């Protein structure tokens, strides 16, 4: 399988000009205390930089799914996957082929919106991005946005000049399409 990165827009270029695309790694792990610690400790000890990690329950009560995104060259990605597989609590690891994967992230964005024009503008933008307004006060507005990391980045750039006071992103969750073999 060729490892297709998430998208061209979310690549990083290192100082020496190497392009490091963003990959999605999906891992099934034992659902018990200490597993997240072991995984993150591995990343720290082996000098792997990750962009996001999400952990949650799965269809099987004794397994959790971790979705990890990392900007990486292929060699480092290969090591990351192999080192993850070595952990006893990690049952299965896959690099997702983004051409055949659905992936989403949720973001909550709180902005300054102390006049009616701003509130209107943000509400309009939110509608275009299919985002929800969760809270409006005299001073601020909170928007909930679900989508690919690109989409969230785009919305963030669009509203940046209003003054983002707080931002929370969940990191990427992902599943491959169709029947898995």
């Amino acid at each position: 399988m060729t490892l297709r990165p998430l998208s061209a827009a979310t690549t990083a270029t290192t100082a020496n000009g190497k392009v490091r695309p963003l990959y999605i790694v999906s891992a099934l792990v034992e659902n018990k205390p200490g597993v997240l610690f072991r995984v993150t400790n591995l990343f720290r000890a082996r000098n792997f930089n990750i962009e996001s990690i999400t952990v949650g329950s799965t269809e099987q009560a004794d397994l959790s799914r971790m979705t990890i995104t990392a900007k990486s060259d292929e060699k480092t990605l290969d090591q990351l996957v192999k080192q993850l597989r070595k952990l006893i609590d990690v049952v299965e690891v896959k690099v997702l082929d983004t051409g055949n994967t659905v992936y989403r992230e949720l973001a909550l964005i709180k902005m300054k919106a102390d006049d009616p024009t701003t509130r209107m503008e943000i509400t309009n933008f939110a509608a275009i991005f299919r985002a929800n307004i969760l809270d409006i006060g005299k001073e601020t507005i909170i928007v909930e946005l679900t989508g690919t990391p690109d989409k969230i980045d785009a919305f963030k750039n669009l509203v940046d000049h209003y003054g983002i006071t707080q931002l929370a992103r969940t990191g990427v969750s992902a599943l491959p399409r169709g029947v898995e073999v």
Partner: protein
Amino acid sequence: MVEMTGAKALIYALEKEDVDVVFGLPGGANLPIYDALVDATSLRHILVRHEQSAAHMADGYARIKRKAGVCFATSGPGATNLVTGIATAYADSSPIIAVTGQVQLAMIGKDAFQETDIIGVANPCTKYAFQPRAASEIPETVKKSFYIAESGRPGPVLIDIPKDVQQENADMKFPELIKVRGYNPVVDADLSQIGKAVEILLKAERPIIMAGGGIILSGAFSELQALSELLMIPVVTTFKGKGAFPENHPLAVGPIGMHGHAEANKIILEADCIVAVGARFSDRSVGRFDEFGKGMNIIHMDVDPAEIGKNKSVDVAVIGDVKSSLRTLVKMLPRKIAKKDADNPWLKRRKELIDYYGEALKDYSRELTAKKALRKLREILPANAIATTEVGQCQMWTSLHFDVISPGTFFSSTGLGTMGFGFPASIGAKAARPEVPVVDIAGDGSFNMTENSLAVSVLDNLPVIVFLMNNYMLGMVAQWQRTFYNRRYMGVHQNKCPDYTKIAEAYGAQGIKVQSSQELENAIKSALKADVATVIDIPIDPEEDVYPFVAPGTGLKDMITGA
């Protein structure tokens, strides 16, 4: 089903794993385990004087017995004292089971007396760490621990047992077989990969085998020898692989690396194909990752998939137990191989290099030098004697001047480089094989760190020989300060303190100071006959350097021979 306490279940489960000896030290949080030890039937407890040594002893035992060694410590400082030994075993893929006491379940997280999060501390240097929360989990935990520690790429496993779990009564079921869902070590390699390796090997004109510690761990000695002899391939080893192949064999070239044999460092650069077996291309072995193996075909055989491509990209990867992989590879070689005769250019080159460096590398003129002392030791020791080392110059002199003849009779702290490892590890090795002589080739700096294990050696009747090359100096550091820091010495002088023969005598061991080659010979012979440990104190000039030397950050081609 049988009802017993968690502590009793632990001891019984260990006995079921055929553990005959544990090295440990009791404390508040593992008292129930020690109470259960009183009734143990086939388990011998060896009391150490410091927990670090308990872990090293278990490690030395494991490396010689080729099954997991076991050590006990209490919670808090007892557990943290084990950590250096656990990390040492982890770096060298040695299977040990460390059992620590922990404060009671309800006290965990309350910063209780002698509480430490040993699971968190040990995580990066263990294959796995268990903390059973109920006594009934103990039998299965022990079974899993041995399985994980001993299979695949071996390594240490920690079992941290809260005191109340040790005391709790439960119905125990001792499983005979165990499965761990996320752990499936590869045993048999992919045949197509071995086929590719055969193809490359048969085409190679100047092939070389680089044998690593994996050969020793899987006991693939005869398989390695078969491959080497069938295709007449010269064998270099990594330092961890020293003793994977008889060093007096006509195809042996010795260890490569920072203080490898000059001829080995030279010949591997001239090869067109490297078969790395059970080796991990460590910086100490290959110098610079980017330079090493350039333009050569590299075949990498290893049990750990994560080692493939970690430090070095390779042409063919054969993942699986190297014993089984080598056996298959030899079987897949064509029936009739055009046997290379001994005067083909490549084998002639091997001999040429050995002869050249044998002449070129002169020893110091003094009567006693590290080289002369180690040659004398080899001359007198029987081939089946076990040797280990401390860390520093003594270790690298051993790499250069002490030939391991019988495969698997040598080990050292090669990965972590733990000073103080050799002496307790030699005691562990003696416990594993009491019938053969065991020698710790030591320097004064390292021996000073764990010399209190003399008490264990004497009281538990595990007599070993400490071959102490004594320059009253942290010699390797001094050598670096001499070479790279313009002789600006700092923190390296031991100032003739202490007198190691008196230290030996204080513990009831034998101490012999030697001044000449003849005295050294007599001392070794006396030590071999003695029924207590013997410390042979051999004066070494503090200015004596280890050569050849591949400076850190440089490649093997930049080797300094000192000649």
